[in-house]
């Protein structure tokens, strides 16, 4: 039982690392990035390619993941989402174009990774980091699990604090409420958007490397599965709310673990879809979401 709770917590913190960036970008600069899953996978994959050449320790691998994730995310923003937002005539059309553009871009890193790996799962067996487990009597916990938990909740706390207390965070939230008024008040939307996308991509890269360590190996298609789960976590907690994402990721991971240990497991993929659908029907703003500001 305690072991199941710990596993659910680890899964939840991986969802959290992934969903945090997506939620941040969607809730503030209005970008729902469907290439996020692909960035996540490709950052982990780049770290894999690198570690084949040079045996690296865990911190270096995490740094590589964060860097690659941030760079890819910035590229997507500059090459695709910025031109779309600049030229779109209205908000709704831009949202849809961003969705489709993200889906299209997501195919590219996926195809490259599938080609290079021949769709065989890849791992970090060449890394100098060794997974060790500690037996605490009632649970067994590995060092990767500890790093994941600390990183996820620590970063969520830092980002939550930054959005509430720091001036750029305030500016970012102002964009989320009314982008035009915010830029009239002297907020540099472009710079903040780039910063947000970099942070989101970095978090995705971090989650990718940690997941690969945690599972031992991941396949190029893993990113897609994470995308819909992160989406469910965001919808569950409320778009743009950091506490909401934490709650959403944990609840989703909890339900999934519960279903996995009590049934044969074939229903587990449906949990995320069911959660998305029900939450949208009952409470479209999520558990902790704020009322959407109407812009007409």
């Amino acid at each position, binding site marked *: 039982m305690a072991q199941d709770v710990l596993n659910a917590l680890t899964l939840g913190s991986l969802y959290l690392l992934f969903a945090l960036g997506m939620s941040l970008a969607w809730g503030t600069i209005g970008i729902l990035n469907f290439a996020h899953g692909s960035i996540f996978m490709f950052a982990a994959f780049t770290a894999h390619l690198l570690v084949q050449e040079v045996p690296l320790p865990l911190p270096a691998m995490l740094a590589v993941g964060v860097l690659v994730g941030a760079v890819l995310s910035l590229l997507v923003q500059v090459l695709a989402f910025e031109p779309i937002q600049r030229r779109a005539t209205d908000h709704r059309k831009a949202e849809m174009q961003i969705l489709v553009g993200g889906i*299209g871009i997501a195919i590219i890193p996926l195809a*490259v990774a599938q080609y290079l790996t021949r769709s065989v799962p890849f791992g970090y067996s060449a890394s100098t980091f060794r997974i060790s487990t500690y037996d605490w009597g009632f649970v067994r916990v590995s060092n990767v699990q500890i790093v994941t938990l600390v990183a996820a909740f620590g970063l969520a706390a830092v980002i939550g604090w930054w959005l509430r207390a720091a001036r750029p965070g305030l500016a970012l939230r102002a964009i989320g409420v009314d982008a035009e008024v915010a830029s009239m008040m002297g907020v540099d939307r472009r710079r903040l958007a780039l910063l947000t996308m970099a942070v989101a991509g970095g978090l995705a890269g971090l989650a990718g490397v940690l997941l690969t360590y945690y599972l031992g190996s991941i396949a190029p298609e893993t990113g897609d599965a994470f995308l819909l789960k992160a989406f469910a976590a965001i919808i569950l907690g409320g778009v743009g709310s950091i506490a909401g994402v934490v709650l959403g990721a944990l609840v989703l991971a909890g339900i999934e673990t519960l279903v996995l240990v009590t049934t044969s497991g074939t229903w587990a993929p449906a949990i995320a879809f069911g959660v*998305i659908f029900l939450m949208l029907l009952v409470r479209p703003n999520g558990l902790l979401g704020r009322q959407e500001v109407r812009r007409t």
Partner: protein
Amino acid sequence: MNAWYFSHLVLVQSTFISFLLALSIQVPLRAGVFSFAGVGSYAIGAYTAAILTIRAQLAPVLAIGAGVLVAAAAGYLLALLVARLSGLYLGMATISFALFLGVLATNGGDLTGGATGLYGAISTLTTGHVVAVTVVVALLLAAGERGAYGRRVDAVREDPHLAVSLGIDVTRVRRRVFVVSGALGAAAGGMNSLLRTTVSPETVGFHLVVTALTMIIVGGALSWAGAAIGAVIFTWLPSVLQVVGDWQLVVYGVIVAAAAVWVPGGLLGLAQDGWHRLRTRHRPIPAGGAAAPVAVVAPDPAQELAALGGPAAEARP
């Protein structure tokens, strides 16, 4: 010609099926409803037709017809459920509806054949039938895009609030769109499973959502013709891209992304723009354009504005 036709029969069939599937997303989108319920209806139609054909040996018309009716009814109920949602939220709710049906099919036991699906749905459905159905559907939709009704749907898409104030029943248009989308999707799914004689949960995944969406985005979302263009391109693209070998998926991704960024109206919109420009090119244009008369009154508009107490030059973008 004949030999080519038979060696490409599967692709020809897929083109028409894809066209119907793309239409099941294009019809709602035209009314401003971002719904992927058509992909779910595709699953409903595919499984209903296969089950009825295998279990009851029903004629294809009845088997597919039953699927269409079930999906249309499901579409109506879904429209009632999601009435409060719009935009991306509606899109995601309908995506999860579609993907949930896929998991449902995996867990359906004997009825749906579980993860392996159903085999041996052999019927008398021919390519001719599929083409006939598709042509009738396209003609009906083309008629619906013209005249007063077409303009009403345009109004609902562009400005729902304005549409309501013009006396258009927006809610009814939206419900109708869900029903039509369900029927179209189910027709595509039903015909596909009878042509291939099999159906499995893999046929309805996230990739089907992506395929249908890319077809209408690249083709053009505002008309049935856009869906037709998209269906032709994305059904035949894989066989054309054989030249680039292993990199065809990369090219595919680049095409989709480029279309979303640079050609938001789709190829149809591009063609219409070009045609419009060609037709208006030879019209006489007043010298200096529309700004000419203004220039006579105020040589420097900025100075004029400043004189009237307007915003100073440096404050304007």
